[in-house]
């Protein structure tokens, strides 16, 4: 049989699609919906979650992520510049910082800030802002270590000619960094930064280790508690869907930005 190459390729593709659809349909049909339905897709439990799951849980998750992201970013820029500095001690401090908080599980860092820091400073946790603030500080430390490396890579990816052009126009090293190098570095690292944002969004679920109040529950804690109270998994499924509603458009947006920047170059 001598099919044209494009026809053949099309044929293969249809076969692959058909197999995939068959697998999905089989999985859906063969699942035990009689059991799954009431346990994880229970409308009565779902209705009870509103509005709290949005107004408290989702809002808190977004807030915590935003605070940790901005804090981590600012600290990350500082660490990246320190790591690229010609001054030895700056480099050493930045390296130690990055290695420490990148090497520890986020959970442990948050725990350490929440419980060890207050004792070390010799005050009660409340005086340092309470568990929410301490937890967020922990998350910022984790975020800063990851972002510092990303930002450093971005800064180093900016061609040397850009610095030379800026310096030749009389711009100081500081102005060159601020107005020329960093803005271009950031364009390069938008995709990895989006990735950091998504990771942070999920890491906010670790804040529970320092303790939560009713008003400070984020999505995972909220869903887990609600799930226990109702002896039903529906809240967890709802939380999962809400996470995806935030993260998927975000990664799409990042891809779009990346394409737009590519055109600008």
């Amino acid at each position, binding site marked *: 049989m001598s099919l044209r190459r494009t026809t053949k390729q099309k044929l293969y593709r249809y076969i692959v699609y058909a197999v995939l659809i068959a697998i999905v349909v089989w999985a859906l049909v063969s699942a035990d919906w009689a059991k799954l339905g009431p346990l994880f897709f229970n409308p009565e439990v779902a209705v009870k979650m509103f509005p709290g799951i949005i107004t408290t849980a989702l809002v808190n998750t977004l807030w915590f992520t935003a605070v940790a992201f901005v804090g981590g970013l600012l600290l990350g820029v500082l660490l990246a510049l320190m790591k690229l500095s010609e001054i030895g001690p700056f480099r050493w401090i930045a390296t130690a910082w990055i290695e420490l908080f990148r090497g520890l599980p986020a959970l442990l860092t948050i725990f350490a800030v929440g419980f060890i820091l207050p004792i070390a400073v010799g005050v009660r946790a409340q005086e340092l802002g309470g568990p929410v603030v301490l937890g967020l500080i922990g998350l910022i430390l984790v975020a800063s270590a990851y972002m510092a490396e990303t930002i450093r890579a971005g800064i180093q990816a900016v*061609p040397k*000619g*850009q610095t*030379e*052009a*800026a*310096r*030749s*126009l*009389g*711009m*100081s090293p500081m*102005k060159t960094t601020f*107005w*020329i190098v960093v*803005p*271009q570095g950031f*364009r390069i690292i938008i995709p990895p930064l989006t990735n950091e944002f998504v990771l942070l969004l999920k890491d906010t679920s670790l804040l529970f280790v320092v303790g939560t109040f009713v008003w400070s529950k984020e999505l995972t804690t909220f869903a887990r508690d609600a799930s226990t109270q109702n002896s039903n998994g529906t809240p967890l499924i709802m939380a999962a869907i809400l996470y995806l509603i935030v993260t998927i458009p975000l990664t799409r947006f990042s891809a779009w930005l990346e394409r737009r920047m590519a*055109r*600008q*170059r």
Partner: protein
Amino acid sequence: MITELIDVHAPAIDVQGLVKSFGDNEVLKGIDLTVTKGEVVCVIGPSGSGKSTLLRSVNLLEEPTGGKVLIEGIDITDPDVDIDRVRTRIGMVFQSFNLFPHLDVMGNLTIAQQRVKKRSKKEAELIAHAMLDRVGLAEKADAYPGHLSGGQQQRVAIARALCMNPDMMLFDEPTSALDPELVGEVLQVMRSLADEGMTMLVVTHEMGFAREVGSRLIFMDGGYIVEEGDPREVLGNPQHQRTKDFLSRVL
């Protein structure tokens, strides 16, 4: 204030015994070069002869290993000199243009005016428009560098340098990265600058430009200035064997 230290009678550029090494590799082996105001000095030579390093040493993009570089009487190798201040008097044009890709043409032309010369946005844009007009790109103010041809990018780069009102311009092989049909428009702009009396030091492979526009031609090889003089003389009747060899290869 550095302005008060400028000696109006001093040459624009005065290079004395300039030595530059990269590790063990001595690229410049004692260069003496004086460029007086209004002169257009072209530097030619084989690749690796040190001509770009010489040019880049004049605004301290390369830190000399030895010797002095005086700009309008100020020794810029003196660590106490505010080099940023001196650099605003020296326009630099690169082979690879080095426009800022994240800024549009107007942004490229105004950023240093605003951040270094502390001009207002309005004043900076006024000057930028005038300079864009001068390089024939008045209608490209809103374009991003990535959307311009190489020739247009290089003309924008020249305009960007001119916006700082420099006393002199350095050109580092300004047409070497251009498609042949785009070389002419850049040379035309450089020619008009020369006609207006701008002091220029030009590293180039464009012998036609050197002959017609240059007031002096320098031939470099192996880190030395081998020969210099009137462009027509050097090109038409070279005195040194190395100059003859080089010219026979490129002409």
